[in-house]
């Protein structure tokens, strides 16, 4: 009953051109597996924001997507600088993105709020100097 399909991706930290590719691939997998457009959109938007954050703020990391019959779990783990004040980081508009990244259209400080809004549960574990792991679940 707890049958699970796992997809694992290593997210490259210095490749801005391919950033988002893991999320695009997950979107395709979920479509092939027959999930609704709404579920697919929620998972892929939340995952994209997390994936991009790992590229911009943490020099890459890994993404695991566990697909169950009744829910989809997304686990994003990095060994970046960590988030010192999670409550602040979760606020709409808060961003530490540098100017060169902002000029690409990132840095609105809306990524983490989007992840929260598009998922049914979200938990951030972070230690400064060690890294960040984000767990998200979308119920099907």
């Amino acid at each position, binding site marked *: 009953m707890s049958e699970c399909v796992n997809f694992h991706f290593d997210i490259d930290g210095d490749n*801005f*051109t391919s*950033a*988002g*590719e893991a*999320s*695009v691939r997950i*979107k395709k997998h979920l479509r092939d597996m027959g999930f609704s*457009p709404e579920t697919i*959109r929620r998972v*892929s*938007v939340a995952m*994209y*924001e997390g994936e991009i954050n790992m590229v911009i703020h943490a020099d890459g990391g890994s993404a695991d997507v566990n697909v169950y019959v009744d829910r989809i779990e997304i686990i994003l783990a990095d060994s970046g600088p960590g988030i010192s004040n999670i409550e602040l980081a979760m606020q709409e508009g808060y961003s530490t993105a540098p100017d060169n990244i902002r000029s*690409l*259209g*990132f*840095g*609105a*400080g*809306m*990524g983490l*709020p*989007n992840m929260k*809004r*598009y998922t049914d549960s979200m938990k951030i574990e972070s230690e400064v100097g060690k890294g960040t792991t984000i767990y998200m679940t979308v119920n099907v």
Partner: protein
Amino acid sequence: MTVKQLADSLSLKVICMPDGDREVTGGYAGDLLSWVMGRANSGDAWITIMSNVNIVAVATLADPSCIVLSEGVGIDAEVLEKAKSVGVNILGSDEDTFALCARIAAVL
């Protein structure tokens, strides 16, 4: 109306149109990618001045019917190839974003 009909009726530049029969169901204007990810609806025409490669991933995931570049913004060959390969429609116009949005809104 479809993306092709939108392009025809407003004489927009067709930068690439791999899926011209896609229905345009609304519009969203914005250049900050996380706003677009969070707020644009599937099927919207997305009006923006952002032209770097990340717009293709955003379009793939947020699922607008097309990207419409305003202000005469062009795109690199690399971005064009990527958009074609994943089936993202990109139109363009020399108008500023406000004028372009007004014209698109009038025909939708």
